[in-house]
């Protein structure tokens, strides 16, 4: 059974802290994604990666960075957390290389981050 796991379901951090959100998939997928979900805005793509050590900016990369050192793990980093980064963060993965649009994405359960 395919599985995407995220390190925390709920996380509370303070403004200015460095925050790491971890995502691990066990499906040997090449592609991994980070989204944030906010009421009325749907899901917005932050970053994605189609190979180890490769990354591409999504629609809202400002304030975030990512790391993909191993195929199964994709980390989202908030260098200096701010209150406007309070959100639900969803990680996803999908198989194959550049043809991501042809493949369904498998999602983790999400991390609800609150920045105080």
């Amino acid at each position, binding site marked *: 059974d395919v599985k995407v796991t995220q390190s925390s379901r709920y996380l509370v951090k303070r403004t200015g802290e460095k925050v790491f959100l971890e995502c691990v998939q066990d499906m040997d997928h090449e592609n991994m994604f980070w989204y944030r979900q906010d009421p009325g805005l*749907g*899901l917005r*793509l932050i970053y994605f990666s*189609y190979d180890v050590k490769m990354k591409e900016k999504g629609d809202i990369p400002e304030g975030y960075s990512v790391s993909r050192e191993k195929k199964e793990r994709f980390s989202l980093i908030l260098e200096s957390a701010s209150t406007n980064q309070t959100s639900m963060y969803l990680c996803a993965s999908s198989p194959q290389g*550049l043809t991501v*649009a*042809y493949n369904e994405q498998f999602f983790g359960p999400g991390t609800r981050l609150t920045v105080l």
Partner: protein
Amino acid sequence: SQQGEEDPQALSIQEGENATMNCSYKTSINNLQWYRQNSGRGLVHLILIRSNEREKHSGRLRVTLDTSKKSSSLLITASRAADTASYFCARGAWAGTASKLTFGTGTRLQVTL
């Protein structure tokens, strides 16, 4: 900006009725996908329809795609209380060096007994 917009934003029906949700988009697509999200959880893929397809079925789900109108619809027949969830369409298209999905804002479906 959001490229997929669902309509209606919220829908409340009784068990056994059919539910129809619509999705519009602005630019060309390679495919369109529908996902379901139960409250506070991750998304689950429901169905994918390619740009050269017009209709697709999966169990109680029926998806149509009209590329001339840049719209898609998701029909859930004989709805059940367990269908209560948010439903999102996602446009799959090339974006620079790779292709990606762009999600809409979702339709919240409430199915009551």
